[in-house]
């Protein structure tokens, strides 16, 4: 690992001021991804600004209940604290579950809410410095296309990049229509979750719409009554501690046999957490039946494309959607 200058920020303003003055600087959260990438020399910052000591607030532990029933989660709150928060568990169980299905107990204790959004892909070719990778070295090519691409994207990929976003937590945040609060040298702004991460296009090295001087300060969860009836399902190669082949986050509301509310997002299938709008539009106001769920899954995957080893993901994604939505409809989707 290349050496660097370290600084510990005590305020958001201080952190933003430092990054604005240092062109090749990185914010450091729990370190569970950045330290690993630095050790592999994929990330080589000259300066590291530790933002884990920014105050998470008082007795609320950094998770604030808003008057409308929504929640504001400060960016430095650890993943395990979010997963175990009573209000998250009761009102947004899909978020608690998604976090618990990711990584390990140790990593969840370290990883921060903001850092989770900034994770980079676990594509093996991205990690392998001898392979071609447009994300690591722009315009160098992509060895995943035509290579071993079992873990790779089936939706929204490009001729430049077929990597996937690795987060589980972000799949739930996409389904819940979260908002990302950020602060930069030019002030504060909010970014809708669906607009935070980018599809690869010709610039797969640009992974988010966060500007270089901006720090994530909080995640806002808007109120969503039927998120009480929500669930996360993750399909992976082993029972625990593995990245998703396909994952599904869903919240469902059924009234008198008709779907009156639905949120659906997929993980492990694209360069960003994939909000399944086509499936949602198919389901909304339709009869809550297996036939509807199958039609919705088919619609969502209609544009899917396999790259050889990952062709199985298209059928797997459809079956997983149908399975988990059916299960949720039977278990708790009825209002």
């Amino acid at each position, binding site marked *: *690992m*290349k*050496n*660097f*200058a*370290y*600084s*510990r*920020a*005590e*305020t958001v*303003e*201080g952190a933003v*001021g*430092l990054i604005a*003055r*240092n062109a090749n*600087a990185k914010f*450091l959260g*729990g*370190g*569970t991804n950045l*330290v*690993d990438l*630095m*050790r592999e020399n994929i990330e080589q910052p*000259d*300066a*590291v*600004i*530790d933002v*884990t000591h920014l105050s998470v607030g008082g007795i609320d532990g950094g998770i604030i209940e808003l008057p409308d029933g929504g929640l504001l989660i400060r960016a430095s709150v650890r993943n*395990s604290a979010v*997963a*175990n928060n009573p209000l998250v*568990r*009761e009102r947004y*169980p899909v978020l*608690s*579950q998604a976090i*618990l*299905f990711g*990584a*390990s*107990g*140790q*990593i969840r*204790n*370290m990883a921060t809410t903001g850092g989770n959004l900034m994770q980079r892909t676990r594509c093996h070719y991205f990690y392998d410095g001898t392979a071609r990778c447009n994300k690591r070295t722009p315009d160098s090519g992509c060895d995943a296309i035509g290579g071993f691409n079992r873990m790779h994207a089936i939706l929204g990929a490009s001729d430049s990049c077929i990597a996937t976003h690795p987060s589980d937590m972000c799949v739930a945040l996409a389904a819940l229509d979260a908002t990302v609060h950020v602060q930069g040298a030019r002030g504060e702004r909010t970014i809708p979750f669906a607009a935070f991460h980018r599809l690869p296009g010709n610039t797969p090295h640009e992974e988010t719409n966060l500007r270089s001087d901006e720090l994530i300060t909080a995640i806002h969860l808007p109120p969503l009554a039927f998120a*009480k009836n929500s669930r996360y399902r*993750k399909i992976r190669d082993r*029972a*625990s*501690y593995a990245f998703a082949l396909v994952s599904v986050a869903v919240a469902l509301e059924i009234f008198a046999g008709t779907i009156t509310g639905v949120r659906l997002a997929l993980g492990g299938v694209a360069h960003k957490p994939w909000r399944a709008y086509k499936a949602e539009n198919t389901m909304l106001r339709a009869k809550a039946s297996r036939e509807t769920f199958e039609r919705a899954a088919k619609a969502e995957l209609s544009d899917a494309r396999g790259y050889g080893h990952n062709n199985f993901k298209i059928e797997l994604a459809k079956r997983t959607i149908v399975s988990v939505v059916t299960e949720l409809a039977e278990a708790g989707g009825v209002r």
Partner: protein
Amino acid sequence: MAELNSVIDLREIGSPSPTVDIALQINGATHALRIEPRVSLLDALREYLGLTGTKKGCNQGACGACTVLVNGERTLSCLGLAVQYEGADVTTVEGLGVDGTLHPVQAAFIEQDGFQCGYCTPGQICSAVGMIREFQNGMPSAVTKDVSVSIVELSEEEIKERMSGNLCRCGAYVGICDAIREAFDSGVMK
């Protein structure tokens, strides 16, 4: 820049001081260190302080051998920079026992044959101590059927899921689970 505990002034990156002076609280003692910012907590423990109980396995957050407790929470010391942990209370396997008496989880690992070669054992034990505290704090897991209700039983399924961040190449998992079960059921940690 009064708001910063700046150990290196970032404006002088062209000629950075290669080392920083920090103090770490480890097993109740304060250790002064002069290290480069890139030194991991794991390497600080093993290479600078001679605390070799904590083991380096994969050095990339996949195996759990380097698990220590930071403010009581299990943490991978290979993925943390030592400078980040100034001001934190770090406990390694060397600090679990008191006055020459083994921690109940350590004793249970011996009693239940929770190891073969022993390389993963310090990480398994620190992880188990942290995991039991998490369970006692009501933390759900991926196998918890309904996260909106509190969990009452630390079932074998729950133990396996919660310990999935610690690998054992010898495959001593049966003994490891039995040891954790024994330590938990004994009530010593309650």
